[in-house]
């Protein structure tokens, strides 16, 4: 395809080693782009390449599983330190999302929502953890996988709860509107519920993390790029301050995106669980 895409994110680390500074020489600002998200494989098994995001995803999963395992494997009436932390985290999703949005019927879905929330949150958090510094969810495959999972659950709950005809009604025909409106509304609802919802769910998470990573990269690279001369160092300090501020902002966005993904999943499920009128 394009020549630029042959450069990978690992080569970007090398760009820091090449002395390329503002006011010195003629090399331009090495702006981050799509290639910042491509990694050289650490090792390959047959046709499967194992790279940094996969490693981060596996470490993140192990961290979450071991935290909840350690917290809940031997539950006590008076919780210890680890159990209290795990309970607070679990309770946040249980009370704040499942109970508030779905209600009592949401109990069977709490494990799914808890897993979704913490998986996405940790995958996002990798963006600002030193040495990792790459949000796994900024690769579209991860959000798409999660959205497909949600879509399968959403569809199966809809049809199991309402039957086939009732399920179609639930998806396409919102109740309580004047009859002529259904001519327009039914196709819109059909497309929106079946195609647009999983698409936006995946793209929202992906694009947020993608944009956030690029923003941080621009200012981090700029800090290095502008160092050197006196005036350049002043600029670089400002750029570094922006990097710090953006890191804090990203922390907020990461938690918000995990929350939004889970809340939207809960909203879809609550719609699927609605009784037909």
């Amino acid at each position, binding site marked *: 395809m*394009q020549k630029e895409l042959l450069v990978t994110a690992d080569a970007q680390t090398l760009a820091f080693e090449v002395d390329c500074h503002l006011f010195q020489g003629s090399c331009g600002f090495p702006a981050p*782009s*799509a290639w910042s998200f491509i990694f050289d494989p650490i090792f390959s098994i047959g046709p499967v390449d194992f790279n940094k995001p996969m490693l981060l995803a596996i470490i993140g999963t192990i961290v979450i599983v071991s935290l909840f395992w350690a917290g809940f494997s031997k539950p006590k009436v008076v919780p210890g330190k680890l159990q209290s932390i795990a309970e607070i985290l679990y309770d946040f999703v249980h009370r704040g999302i499942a109970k*508030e949005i779905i209600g009592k019927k949401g109990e069977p879905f709490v494990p799914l929502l808890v897993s979704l929330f913490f998986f996405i949150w940790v995958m996002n958090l990798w963006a600002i953890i030193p040495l990792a510094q790459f949000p796994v969810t900024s690769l579209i495959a991860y959000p798409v996988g999660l959205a497909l999972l949600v879509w399968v659950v959403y569809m199966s709950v809809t049809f199991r709860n309402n039957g086939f005809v009732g399920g179609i009604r639930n998806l396409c025909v919102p109740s309580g509107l004047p009859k002529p409106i259904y001519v327009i509304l039914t196709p819109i609802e059909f497309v929106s519920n079946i195609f647009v919802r999983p698409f*936006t769910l995946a*793209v*929202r998470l*992906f*694009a*947020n993390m*993608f*944009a956030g990573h690029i923003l941080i990269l621009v200012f981090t690279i700029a800090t290095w790029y502008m160092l050197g001369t006196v005036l350049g160092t002043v600029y670089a300090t400002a750029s570094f301050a922006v990097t710090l501020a953006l890191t804090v902002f990203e922390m907020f966005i990461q938690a*918000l*995106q995990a*929350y*939004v993904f889970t*809340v*939207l999943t809960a*909203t879809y499920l609550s719609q699927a669980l609605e009784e037909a009128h």
Partner: protein
Amino acid sequence: MSETLAAVTGNIGTIGYGLAAIGPGVGIGIIFGNGVQAIARQPEAAGIIRQNMLLGFAVIEALALIGFVAPFIYPK
């Protein structure tokens, strides 16, 4: 028409993102403006208002972000 009145050099995707950000910008302004107003009128409902505010924010923001990613997907 052979005469060019105006020409743009560089990546036109940046202009595309500028255009794509107008609508969501207005939308996010409305949602947070009304959300803050609602919380000011009824502080005891702040929790549920904030939740719906963030939900609406995320739904609107998706449009702006699709606009941001599109130039990367269709370069040139």
